[in-house]
C-alpha cells in the first residue's frame, strides 16, 4: 500500500457575501472604518478558513451606491466568489445614491447554481452581511419580494444586517434579514452609532459567522447562534444595540431535544433543482 500524500477531504463551501453601502453618506469616517476593519478581518478569517475542517470559505463583496457592483471577480474579470486564501481587500470609496434594490437584484442574479454556486461539491448555507446607513433610493421592495420569493439560496442564507448611524432604515433591514417564511427579523439587525464600534463589530460578526456557518448543524439556529455570540462579545462596547434572541432554539447544548427541533429529517430538500 503506497501511502501517497493524501489530499484534504472534500469540504462544502461556505459563501460569505458582504453587501456594503458606499453611498455618499458613508463617505469619510464610515467607509474608512469599513476599510480598516476589513483589512484586519481578512487576516482573522484566513486563519479560521485554514483550520476549519467542515467548510472552505469563499468571499463575495457587493457594493451599492448609484447602482450595485461586484468587487470580487475571477481572472477574466467576471463577478465571482473568491477563496478566502486568495482574497485581498481593496479600499472602497463612497459617493452616490443608496440603490438597495439594485444590490438585491444583483444578489438574485448571482446566487444561482448557474452562477456563483456552480461548484459540484456543494455549499453550506450562505452568510450575507448587509451594511447600510441610509434610506433606499430605488425600488428595493419589488427587488426584495422577487429574491425572497424566487431564490432559495437567499431564503436559506444566514442574514445579519448592520444599521449604521441614526438615519439607517432599520425596518427595511429587518425585512431583508427576514426569516425563510418572509417574516421580518428585527433581531438580526444590529444598530451601531460610532465608528470604532463598527470596526470591532465587522470583525466579530465576520469571525463568528465564519465559525458558526462552517460547522455542521442539525438544528436551524445559525442566525440566532451568530447573534447570541456576537452580543456576548460586544457586551462591553458602547454604541451598539443587539436584540435579545427570542428564538425557539438556544445555543446552549441542550439535552431536552424536542421532537420539533430535531424532527425526522425527511427526504425533502434533496432535489437538485435549486434555482426556481
Amino acid at each position, binding site marked *: 500500500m503506497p*501511502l501517497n500524500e493524501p*489530499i484534504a477531504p*472534500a469540504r462544502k463551501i461556505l459563501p460569505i457575501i458582504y453587501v456594503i453601502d458606499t453611498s455618499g453618506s458613508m463617505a469619510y469616517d464610515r467607509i474608512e472604518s469599513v476599510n480598516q476593519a476589513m483589512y484586519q478581518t481578512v487576516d482573522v478569517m484566513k486563519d479560521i478558513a485554514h483550520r476549519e*475542517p467542515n467548510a472552505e470559505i469563499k468571499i463575495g463583496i457587493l457594493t451599492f451606491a448609484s447602482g450595485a457592483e461586484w468587487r470580487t471577480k475571477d481572472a477574466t474579470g467576471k463577478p465571482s466568489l473568491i477563496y478566502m486564501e486568495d482574497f485581498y481587500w481593496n479600499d472602497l470609496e463612497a459617493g452616490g445614491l443608496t440603490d438597495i434594490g439594485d444590490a438585491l437584484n444583483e444578489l438574485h442574479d448571482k446566487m444561482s447554481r448557474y452562477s456563483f454556486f456552480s461548484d459540484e461539491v456543494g455549499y453550506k448555507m450562505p452568510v450575507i452581511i448587509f451594511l447600510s446607513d441610509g434610506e433606499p433610493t430605488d425600488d428595493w421592495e419589488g427587488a426584495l419580494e422577487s429574491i425572497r420569493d424566487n431564490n432559495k439560496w437567499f431564503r436559506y442564507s444566514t442574514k445579519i444586517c448592520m444599521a449604521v448611524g441614526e438615519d439607517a432604515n432599520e425596518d427595511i433591514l429587518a425585512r431583508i434579514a427576514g426569516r425563510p417564511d418572509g417574516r421580518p427579523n428585527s433581531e438580526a439587525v444590529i444598530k451601531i452609532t460610532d465608528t470604532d464600534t463598527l470596526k470591532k463589530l465587522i470583525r466579530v460578526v465576520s469571525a463568528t459567522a465564519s465559525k458558526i456557518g462552517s460547522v455542521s*448543524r442539525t438544528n436551524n439556529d445559525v442566525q440566532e447562534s451568530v447573534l*447570541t455570540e456576537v452580543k456576548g462579545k460586544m457586551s462591553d462596547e458602547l454604541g451598539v444595540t443587539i436584540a435579545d434572541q427570542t428564538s425557539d432554539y438556544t445555543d446552549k447544548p441542550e*439535552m431536552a431535544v424536542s421532537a420539533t427541533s430535531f424532527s*425526522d429529517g425527511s427526504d425533502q430538500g*434533496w432535489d437538485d433543482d435549486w434555482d426556481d
Partner: protein
Amino acid sequence: MKQFRPGKVIQTVKGTPLTIVKYLTEGGQGYIYDIEHEGKHRILKWYKPEKVNKPDKFYQNLNDNARRGSPSDSFLWPITATERTDGSFGYVMELRQDGYHEFTEFLTDCKRIHFNTFKANVEACIRIVSAFQILHHHGYCYQDMNDGNFFINPSSGDVLICDNDNVAPNNKEAFIIGTPRYMAPELVVPAILGPDEEGNERKTKPSTSTDYWSLSVVLFMILCMGHPLEGERWLVPLLTPQNERYLYGSGATFVYDPSDGSNRPNPKVHANVIAFWKPLPPYMKEAFHRAFSKDAIRNPGKRLREIDWLKVLVRFQAEIRRCHNCGGEVFMINAKDTPCDECGKLQRVERKLRFRDYAVTAFKGVRVYRCMLESCNAENALTRVGTIVANPSRPGLYFLNNTDMTLEGRTAKGTVKQIPPNSVVPIKPGITVSAYSGSFTIE
C-alpha cells in the same frame, strides 16, 4: 467578556494559584490560556459562561473528575478546577509535548501534517481504541468525540486525548449532545430508535453506545481520510440543517453499505475514501460494514466495541511490512506473497505465525498480542506476548518473550522447551508457543 491580562492570578480548588502568562486561542466552549501553575507551564481552559449547560453540576463533575485522576497517560486530564470567579470558571491541564498535532490538522492541512507510515496510522487507531476502552472500563462516557479532541504524533501514532471536561459517569449526567458528524444517529434524530414501550418518543443522551458510534467514525476518518456517511447524498447543492438531520440521522447510510449503494463515494469529490478503502484488508472492511450497518445505526447495542476493533487492528498492523527492495509499505494480507505497490517487487512469505483464527507473515517487528491467541476481554487484549526480532550477530528471526512469565515452546517432534521472560525462540517451522490459554504455531 474581557480577556484576562498576563499576570492575573486565579485560585484553584487544589489550593495552588495559577498565573496567566498569555492568551492563546478561543474554542467553542471557552478560551485557552498559557499559564504558570505549580512551577510549570500549563494550560487553562476558561469557560464562556453562556456555553456551559447546567453550570453547577458541570462544575461539580469537573471537580469529581480532577479528584479521581486520569485513567491513563493518554488523557490530558483536568488537574484541578479553578475557584468560581469573574463570572465563570475553568480548569488546568498539562501542556502537550511537541510533535503532536490535532487530528483536525490532518484533515485540513494534510500536505504538511500526515502520517509518516500506515503502520503509525493503525497505531493511532489502536491507541485511541485502547484509551477509550480504559475510559469506559472506569465507568466514564466521553460524550463528545470529534476531530478536535485528539492530538496525534504522525511518526509514532501516539495519541493524546484532550477536552476531557465533558467526560462523565456513563448514563448519569450529560452536558453536551456532541458534535454533528460525529454524533450517533439517535442523538441527531431520536425517532430512528422507534417509540418506547409506552409509545412515546425516546429521550436519547450520550452514553457508552453513542461513544461506540463516534469511535467508529473517528477510526474510519483516520484510515480513509473521509467521513463514513458522506457519499453521493452529501453532494446536495445546499446542505441545510434538514439535510444534515437526514444525512447523519434518519437516513444515515454508510458509503460502502453492502446492501444499499445509494450513498457511494463520488470519484471526483471523495477520492481519498475510494483510494484508502480499496486496499484495506477484508476483515477491516467487514468491521466497518458491521459498525455502520443499518442494524447498528438503529440498534445501539449492536455497535462494535473496543475488543472488536482491537482484534482487527492488531491483525492489520501485523500485516504491514516494509518492502525489502524500496522500503515502501506492503499489506501482506492473509500471509500471502504480495507484490509491492510501489516497485512491484514480490514480497515472499517465508515463515508464518498461525494463530487460532488466522496467520500473519513472520517478519521483524511483528507484535503478538494476547487477543491474537485467544478470546479475552478488552482490558487484556493489548497485553504484549512477544515480538519478532532479529539479532545482528546471528542469522534468522526470533520470537522474543515480552511477558514476565515463562512461556512454553514445543517443537514438531514434541520436545518441550521453556522460554523465560526476555528470551527468544527461533522462528522455525513446527514450533508451537503457548501463552495464557492460547498458542500459535510457526509454519
